[in-house]
Structures are given as structure tokens and as C-alpha cells.
């Protein structure tokens, strides 16, 4: 992939709380904000930082399944609800399952590159606690191939990744891998405890790794994963502004406040086919290598990454897809502490999907917001060290079982 023909920046990120079980204020039977409230909060959060709706040329919103969770479609029409100043402006809704947020970013980047816009407001969201987990599983299943649903697990996606975990156990050994899952979980929760918007912010479990090492119970849930290996059901929205240099000028924002999009990879795999290798995220690997290549850097120059750990096993495989560890060596890399916040390559510094939460259509945008904060030294208690010789951040957002992939490289 060629270098970008124009400079693209991201700035002014905003995350709502990732609401759901684990948050003290969450009660499944109490009334909660609707999708319109989440969209509005995140959108207004960004508009405040960029001088208002008048500065926005285009809008894009990523969402997976509001049509079922909230009985709502036609989501682009919520932009004028955020601010009347967005009325009559072009807006698009994009969908690529849990990769919808990443697609929203890519859509915005392309509008800047195409010079149809100088300022794009990008939002991603999902409001999922409208139904119990067992029905949530129904609503999320279309991220996979519908023809496989009938024979699939009641919890369809967790079932698919449980199969991946089983394959990984068989090929590379169960014990070390499960220990690495537990470490991944611990890192996720410890990071989330430092981020006030994280779903696991209130988590008080003392021995996290011991909790995560409890054996899976296939009768109650899955064969190879426990509930702690899974990201939770979340309500949340994230938003960010995507701008050209001209856009930054218009908004009065110095370039030094923004991060630059220096490369990206957008990759699709055939949804009707099973993964070529259950023990690897091959599409993610492709997207990441394209992103790094277009940025003209190697993974060794990256300081931190946000990866799509919808399940701990996906986190381990993502480590390998990024090129940080060879195939089968992800568990050791994690167990050596490399991905912890004080490790040599901190990953998911606000908790990732397991710790911060996974409002499916919002996750890609949340990744960009986290990297913006980290690379600009504005991550507060979550801040990790960004070495001056490695001023890059990488995100890898995945839709479905390694089908829709967006990887973006940012420069501080």
C-alpha cells in the first residue's frame, strides 16, 4: 500500500462510561439511558473540543446491531440530534460487526484523503444491555455466517472462540496457554481499574489470576473458556474527530494536540469460510502488516497497541498477529510480562475489551481515543511510558471471527 496522499489527524476523543455488569451504578432491571443518549454524549463531547458543529463537514457512525438491540436503524439521522448544527450535513452509517467502529474511522480517513471533508466527526456505539446475555448471543451471531448458526453453540461467538482456544491448547499446550489467558485477564482488569470509564473500574477481586484459572464448565457455558475469558455485554459510545491540516487550523487546534494517521490496513476475509488456521488470526495479521507497511515502520518502533481481545484467546493470538511473538509463543510473551503496563510493549492500557468493555460497534473508535490519550501523554492514571524513539501506536479492530479487519498506525 502506498503512503497516504495527504496528512490525516485524529484529535478530540471522547468515551462515555462502558456500562454493564461490573459497574456499581448498573442494575439490569433499572431504566438506563438509550442509544440516543450515548450518541449525544459522545458526539457533544467531541464538538465541545473542536469549536462546535459548525466546523464539521461530514459525519460517520459505526454500529453493529441497533436494529435488534434497540429496534433502531437509519442511525446517521442521529447526528442532527447531537447538535442542530449538524442538520443537513452528510452523514453515513457503517457496519462491519464488531469492526464497525474501525470502519467508521476508515470512512472518515477516506473522506479526508478524498478531500471531500476537512473535518469528520466519527462515532461508534452499541447499547446491548436491553436483553439478557442469552438473547444478546442471538443478536451478535450474525457477525458470523448465518448458515452456521443452527449448528452453533447457544452462545455462538463465544462458542467459536472456545473452539479456537481448544485448537490452540491442542497445538501448543493447554497449561501455559490457560495461564496466559489468566494473565491477560489480570492485566485487563488492573488497567481498567485506572480508567474511570471502564466497565471493570470497580472490580475489587484480589487474586485475579486465580479467579481466571477456574476450570471451564462446558455444561454451564463453554468447553475451553470461562466467563472471565470473555468481554462483557456493554453499553457505550466513543467519538473522535478526523481532520486534515486545514481542518485543524479551522478548529484552532495545534498539530501538536493531534495524532497523525500514518498508515492503515483494511482487509476483508470470506465470511462463508472457516478460518484457514484456528490457532491464528490470519486476517488481523494481514491488516497489521499492511498498516505497518503503509506507515513505513516495523512493530519494533511501536510503543503501545490496542488489540481486539473480545476473548482472552483472541488477545493472545493478536500478540502473534502483530508480530510480537512467533506462532505458539504468544502465551510466553504475555506471561513474561511484556504486555503489562510496565512491560516493554503495553497492550490495551485502559483494559481493552475484557477490561474496559466491548460496546461492539464502538470498540474501534474507543481504541483510537485511547491511543490519542496515550500518545499525547493525556491518559491520566492510565498513562504508560511512550519512548521517544518509538512514538507510534497501533490499533487492530476485528469484526466477526477474523473477517472484517481495520488496523491503523498513529504517530504521536
Amino acid at each position, binding site marked *: 500500500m502506498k503512503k497516504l496522499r495527504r496528512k490525516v489527524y485524529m484529535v478530540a476523543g471522547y468515551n462515555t462510561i462502558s456500562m454493564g455488569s461490573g459497574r456499581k451504578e448498573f442494575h439490569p432491571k433499572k431504566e438506563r439511558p438509550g442509544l440516543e443518549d450515548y450518541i449525544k454524549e459522545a458526539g457533544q463531547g467531541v464538538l465541545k473540543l473542536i469549536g462546535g458543529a459548525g466546523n464539521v463537514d461530514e459525519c460517520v457512525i459505526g454500529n453493529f446491531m441497533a436494529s435488534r438491540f434497540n429496534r433502531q436503524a437509519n442511525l446517521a439521522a442521529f447526528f442532527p440530534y447531537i447538535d442542530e448544527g449538524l442538520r443537513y450535513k452528510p452523514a453515513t452509517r457503517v457496519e462491519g460487526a464488531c469492526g464497525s467502529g474501525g470502519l467508521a474511522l476508515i470512512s472518515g480517513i477516506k473522506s479526508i484523503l478524498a478531500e471531500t471533508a476537512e473535518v469528520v466527526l466519527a462515532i461508534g456505539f452499541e447499547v446491548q444491555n436491553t436483553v*439478557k446475555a*442469552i*438473547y444478546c*448471543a*442471538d443478536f451478535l*451471531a450474525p457477525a458470523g455466517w448465518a448458515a452456521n*448458526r*443452527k*449448528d452453533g*453453540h*447457544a452462545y455462538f461467538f463465544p462458542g467459536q472462540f472456545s473452539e479456537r482456544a481448544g485448537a490452540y491448547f491442542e497445538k501448543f499446550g493447554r497449561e501455559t496457554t490457560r495461564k496466559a489467558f489468566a494473565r491477560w485477564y489480570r492485566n485487563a482488569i488492573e488497567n481498567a481499574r485506572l480508567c474511570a470509564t471502564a466497565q471493570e473500574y470497580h472490580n475489587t477481586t484480589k487474586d485475579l489470576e486465580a479467579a481466571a484459572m477456574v476450570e471451564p464448565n462446558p*455444561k454451564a457455558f463453554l468447553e475451553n473458556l470461562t466467563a472471565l475469558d470473555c468481554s462483557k455485554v456493554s453499553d457505550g459510545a466513543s467519538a473522535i474527530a478526523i481532520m486534515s491540516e486545514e481542518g485543524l487550523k479551522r478548529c484552532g487546534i495545534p498539530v501538536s494536540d493531534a495524532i497523525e494517521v500514518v498508515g492503515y490496513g483494511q482487509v476483508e476475509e470470506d465470511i462463508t469460510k472457516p478460518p484457514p488456521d484456528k490457532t491464528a488470526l490470519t486476517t488481523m495479521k494481514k491488516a497489521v502488516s499492511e498498516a505497518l507497511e503503509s506507515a513505513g515502520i516495523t512493530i519494533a518502533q511501536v510503543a503501545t497497541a490496542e488489540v481486539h481481545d473480545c476473548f482472552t484467546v483472541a488477545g493472545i493470538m493478536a500478540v502473534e498477529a502483530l508480530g510480537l511473538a512467533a506462532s505458539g509463543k504468544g502465551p510466553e510473551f504475555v506471561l513474561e510480562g511484556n504486555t503489562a503496563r510496565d512491560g516493554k510493549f503495553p497492550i490495551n492500557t485502559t483494559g481493552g475489551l475484557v477490561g474496559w468493555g466491548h460496546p461492539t460497534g464502538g470498540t474501534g473508535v474507543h481504541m483510537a481515543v485511547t491511543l490519542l490519550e496515550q500518545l499525547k501523554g493525556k491518559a491520566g492514571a492510565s498513562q504508560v511510558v511512550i519512548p521517544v524513539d518509538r512514538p507510534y501506536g497501533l490499533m487492530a479492530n476485528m469484526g466477526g471471527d477474523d473477517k472484517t479487519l481495520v488496523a491503523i498506525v498513529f504517530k504521536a
Partner: protein
Amino acid sequence: MTYEERLQHVSVLGAAGKMGSGILLLTAVEMADLSLKAGNKGKTFVLNAIDVSDEGLAGVMRYLKAQILKIAEKKVHALRAMYAEHHDLIDNDEIIARYIFDVMNVVRPTTRLEAAYDSNLVFEAIKEDSALKIRIFSQINQNNPKQPWFFTNTSSIPITVLDEGAGLGGRIIGFHFYNPPAVQKLVEVIRSKQTLDEVNDFALAYAKNLRKVVVPARDIAGFIGNGHFMRDILYAVDVIHKLMDMGMSITEAIYAVNKVTQEFLVRPMGIFQLIDYVGVDVCGFIMFVMNPFTKDEEIHSKLLDKLLGQGVKGGQYSDGSQKDGILKYEKGKIVAVYDPLKEMYIPVSEIQSLVDEKLGAMPAAPAWKSVVGNKAKDDILKPYFAQLRSATSAGAEIAREYVRKSNEIGWRLVANGVAFNDADVNTVLLTGFFHAYGPINEYLD
């Protein structure tokens, strides 16, 4: 007749009642699961929900729907396998909705007793009245050519009385669910003098499929559960009189005994709260039924009679919340105690500190919640009871005597042949009453 054939035509009598609706639910689920087995395609499964109240039957159908939904959500994984051949059912919600329909579809609500004339098996959960039960059993037995089996949920009437009274020739067994049947794991199984082996075998198989814990009891009025509970109540009333002799008012004494039995005996609720939960009227009625069968022992409480005479009944609202009884409740908390002398409730705030003062210093008791279900509960209970043993206050003395009395009631049930062994008595109290420890123990020895 096989297990499955037996369950192809069943009736529940008193199906709209609290126990009957639970039995109906569990049986409907078991029958529907059988009907969904691959080999049973085309076979019919019929469950008559028989009750005198049309309104009650309408309510029980709503109850069934809500409960089956919960059950289906819990076992959706198994349901996906059961409906694997139904290619039109793909999402969990479609499968759950179909299962609810399939379970409801075996149930036939009716107010006509005649429906039971075709049944192979009749569950009975009507009023605790032996004459009424005998009359209905006889009527069904005489009109039903299938020689039906009768499963009675009586908690107190000897099964032999019903068997002989209705001329059933051993086609009856006591199958005593605990309240609520859908939740409580315990079933007491009681054979009459003549209960046929095959009836007993079926009862055990059925209980196993419902994942119930079976405790066999001998056919002596009250069996194990009420055998302990009713005597426990009578002892509590004795203690009240003792405390009143020592200068406490009746409300203070009730409050004190309730507090001691809950907190210092580490039980889920105090004895008077439990009476309210079951119903003062139900307790009185069980005693009335048991008393004629208990020689050398008076199972009867004048205090309960007096309370009932004043309309103090307890029991629960249809949503499961507690009605006021001997105690008055607000959001599940005890806020007042009934005074049968003044015929009014006295607020707990007026009693509490006086009672605490009179009970004196008590060892810190572990919370019931922290003990029940705790695998290492002996490590909590032993040191607690050791402290209780050496405590000198009046309250500690009451608690110790109470523990010893409960122990005595327990071993007497074994000595009198109601229970087969100590372990069975303890299982009933642990499982059916959610006690944290069995009454037969050595904590104070």
C-alpha cells in the same frame, strides 16, 4: 407400564395452589422433555391441571409461562440439541419460545375432576384434610379404569390412612415437596403400609429426573420435616412463657426468641418469621392433623389458636412477599411484633434495646449466609459454639437450651422410627429448611 407410559397421562389436583402449581410446572417440564425425545414422536402427553378455581387456573398458566421461560433460558444449550432437527428454529429466542409452547401444550387446565378419570398418575396437593382427600381419591379410583397411582403431597397425614380410607391397595405414596417445589431440592418420600414396590421405584426415578434430594420417612404423622418443625414451634412457645415468667412482656419474649433462633442459632430466619412464612393458619392446621396420631404428646398450641382467633395469619402474597403475621414486615424487614394481649403491633424500636439488655452479652455469631453452603463451615461453627458454650448471659443460656432441644427433637424422630437415621433428619433440615447445620450435632458436647 413403563416410566414414560405412566407419564403420558397425568393429573394434578389443586393445581392452582402454591404447591400444586409448582408440582404442575415440574411435571409439565418432565413430560414435555419426554415428548421431545426422538423415539416419542407422535405420542401424546397430557397433564390435567385440575383446580376448583377458574381464576386460579388462569393465574397458574401465567405462572407456568414465566417459570418455563426461566427454565428454558437456563438450559438453552440442551434445548438446542433437543430441537436440532427443527430447521426452522435457529436463534435461542426462537427455540426458547417453542419450548415454552411445547411445555404449555401438555397442560390442560380444567375445573372438572372427571379429567383425572383417564390418568395413570394423580398428584394431589389439595387442602390438608384427610376426609376430603379420601373422598376424592375414592371417586377417581372408582371411575378410572386404569388403576391410577396417587402421589400425595400431604405433609402430615399418614399415607396408610389415605390408602386404606380410599381403598387404593397400595397404589399411593407420600411425595412431599417443599415450598416452593420449583426451587426446593428436598422431597420426603413416605410409603404406606401397603405401598407397592413399583410405585416406590417410579417415585424415586421421577425424583431423580427432577434432580430432587430424596429422604425416605416412615409413615408417622408429620414425617421428618413437620415432625421437627412443629415441635420446634411448641418449644419456642414454651420459651416465651418462661421468659414472661421472668418478667418480659409477650412481645419482648417473641422478639427475643425470634432473634435468638435466627442470629444465635445461625438459621436463615427466626422461628416466628418461619411460622409467618409458612402461615400461622397452615402451622395450626398441620398440628391439628398430627395431634390425633401422636401418643403421649400434645401437638397443639394455645398461642397459635389465640393468634388465629384474632386473624393473625401470615402467609405470602401472590408475588411471594411476606404478609404480616406474628411479626410485621416492611420490605422484608421485621418492624413490629404482634401483641395478642393488646391485639396490636408493637414497634420493634420500642422493644429492641430492652430485649438486648435482658439477653445480655452474646458471642458474635457468624451470619447464616456466610456459613450455609460454605464447605469449611465446621471451621466457623465449632469456634462459635465453643464460645456460646462458655458464655454466661441469659441469651446464651436460651440459645444453648434451644440447640439441645432441637437436637433432642431430631434424635427422637430417629428413636421413634420416623426417620431411618440421623443423616436423614439432618438432610431434611439442611435441604428443606436451609439450616446451616443439622439438628443432630455435637457442637455443644
